[in-house]
């Protein structure tokens, strides 16, 4: 992997991360906020995969896997709470 592509992708993903955080804080409704959090996790998974591919650190992918699982459960719980205030019922 060439250095230019790696560092360019790193900077670009960091910029996207900032855009999503701004979007998260200016969202119009609660569901849009949950959606922005979900998107934030996807961008973070991309960032961790980039770091894992650069110098073959498999543990970065472990973190991405845990993040994906956690974000899925968090999204489901938050949505069910918004619906009828009973996230696990």
């Amino acid at each position, binding site marked *: 992997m060439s250095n230019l592509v790696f560092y360019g992708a790193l900077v670009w993903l960091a910029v996207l991360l900032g855009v999503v955080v701004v979007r998260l804080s200016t969202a119009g409704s609660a569901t849009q906020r949950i959606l922005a959090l979900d998107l934030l996790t996807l961008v973070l998974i991309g960032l961790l995969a980039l770091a894992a591919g650069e110098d073959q650190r498999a543990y970065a992918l472990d973190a991405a896997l845990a993040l994906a699982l956690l974000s899925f459960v968090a*999204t489901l719980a938050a949505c*069910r709470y*918004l619906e009828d205030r009973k996230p696990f019922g």
Partner: protein
Amino acid sequence: MSALLADALIVLGLAVITVGVYGVVRLPDVYTQLHAASKAAFLGAAALVASAAVEGDAATVTRAIVIVVLLTVTTPVAAHAIARAAHRREEPMRTEGAVDES
């Protein structure tokens, strides 16, 4: 050759994930934003994970496959939960000419 493939996958993933983020920022309501977040952003992240697996050893490839399969299974479920919550809370559809058929 495989380094070139990894670079190409990174550029592709960046382009697709950028389209997803742009869609979430620009589209008018949560129902249309879900299209961008659950299709474009997911495919971009999957391409980035695949780029890590191209030159990787067995540990990296296994983890990459597990992550992509997990995202493929969970992203539609999460998107459906968000859309259902928005509809139950009676959020308006702000897209031009939108029809609520429920």
